[in-house]
């Protein structure tokens, strides 16, 4: 099912285009895609461009994809209370509130709005501790979701 669903999503992204502020940078296979994400309008991240890496396994879309902000020479993880400096994202929809109804572009839009509504540019309070010991796949982390409003 994962390939068929991803094929459909990829086709849609290519044919109909990604949502505003989002661009498919890499989508050559059904293992890993990279999309860029910008926050449109006034926000703390105005003018910044981030990249999201989606990694899929055969369980997709029953299981969520692994989604992280790309951290390399070109991209940095946004400074946000729910984004760790290693690119891991603490978002309930990527964890226990995932639903197979969600798609790659839906996730991008959600994260875009998460950034757009941010009021303080800062790292999660436990950033250093988490980053030091984080698993490679953030889906292996059990997140505690602290608040609804960021």
């Amino acid at each position, binding site marked *: 099912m994962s390939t068929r669903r991803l094929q459909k999503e990829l086709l849609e992204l290519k044919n109909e285009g990604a949502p505003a502020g989002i661009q498919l940078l890499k989508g050559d296979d059904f293992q890993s895609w990279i999309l860029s994400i910008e926050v449109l309008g006034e926000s703390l991240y105005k003018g910044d461009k981030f990249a999201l890496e989606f990694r899929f396994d055969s369980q997709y879309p*029953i299981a969520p994809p692994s989604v992280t902000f790309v951290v390399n020479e070109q991209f940095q993880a946004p400074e946000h209370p729910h984004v760790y400096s290693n690119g891991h994202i603490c978002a309930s929809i990527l964890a226990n509130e995932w639903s197979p109804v969600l798609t790659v572009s*839906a996730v991008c839009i959600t994260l875009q709005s*998460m950034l757009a509504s941010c009021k303080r540019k800062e790292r999660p309070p436990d950033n250093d501790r988490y980053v030091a010991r984080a698993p490679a796949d953030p889906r292996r982390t059990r997140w505690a979701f602290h608040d609804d409003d960021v």
Partner: protein
Amino acid sequence: MSNREPLWYCHECHAEMRPLMVPDPHCASCNGTFVEKMENPADDPREFSGGDFEDPFSGDGGDNFLFGLMRAMAPPQPNRTASAPGTGNGSGFTLHIDRTGTPGGGARTTFSTRPMQSRSRTTQSDRTGEIPTLSDYVARNPAGTRPEGNTINGSLMFQYLLAMLQQPGRRGQFDNTLGGLVPPGAENGRMGDYVFNQEALDQIITQIMESSSAHPVAATEEVMEKLPREVLEEGSPLLEKDCAVCKDQFSLTTEDPDELVIVTLPCKHPFHEPCIVPWLKSSGTCPVCRYQLVPQPDHHSPGPGSPNGPGGSGNNRPRAGSGGGSGSTGGFAAAPGGIFGNLFQMFGAGGSDTNGNSNHSGSSSNTTGNNRPSTSRTNSTNHNNSSQNAREHVPGGWSDDMEVD
């Protein structure tokens, strides 16, 4: 005065003296009141000082007291002392209560424990000051031998109580009461409620935080079997709808005959059977509206009474904008009132994380009922099981532990 009055012994300063009667006996040297007349040579109070304890709950005295208590509670095992390898002695303790009337008129009770056969042994080998791990006690073989060189210092009395509750022979009886509070093994500076280093404390805090984010509860086989199924046929109104999981429109021309079977959830959202069943096995909710087929720990989801209406399936709306009251990011997802359940679960899982509990026998029953929403969550009575469950791979399921490499 040829027939002299016997001397008194002061348990506080260990002096032998004649007490000041004011009117109760007071030690002539330190003025303490914990003094005893040495009148019975068979029960010389000075011998109690062999363990060098002043308080029955500190030092070896406390150890022995609790250890003796543990013995007393243990069911009789005829071969216990016989099979103790090598030592044989020193493993039995008696609880000794000594009630002595004092000349001053007040009655006084002293109590202590001492090894039945070898008093000196405890004073030699058990005083290394090294803190044993709880698993040493848990793992103690049925013969009751105590690992050499390990002792718990008095302030850690609680550890003994934990160990006592954890004794293989006593398991089950206490597990139900404590809900599995007691960790089956304690390495890495963790023992029950105590931690000995910053890392262990971090671990615990992390686990508490993490365990408060609730996992979805899977639908039971029974619930899934009862869902209405419909085989697609010509003219079915379903043919105009999509499956929200695979995003395909329902169709009669499909390669997979299973996709002709449509499951409609109580909230009226239809899905291909092969699409919805794997999801329900990981979360008993509607993917579209999060209607709960089985109660979920997550209070964000709309309750069974408020499903979205029919239709609207197969759209690509992001969750964030789709109502349902769910915060798309964040959201404190702890099961309301389930914090103790989570704590218990966490202690169970945490203990087995830290390895070294393979000899935790006697807990391999009750493997069923994993998916029951309430029982498995709030009072997991079997730590080993609960941690194993967490590791079972369920499609879309969440592995429990943050890997620390």
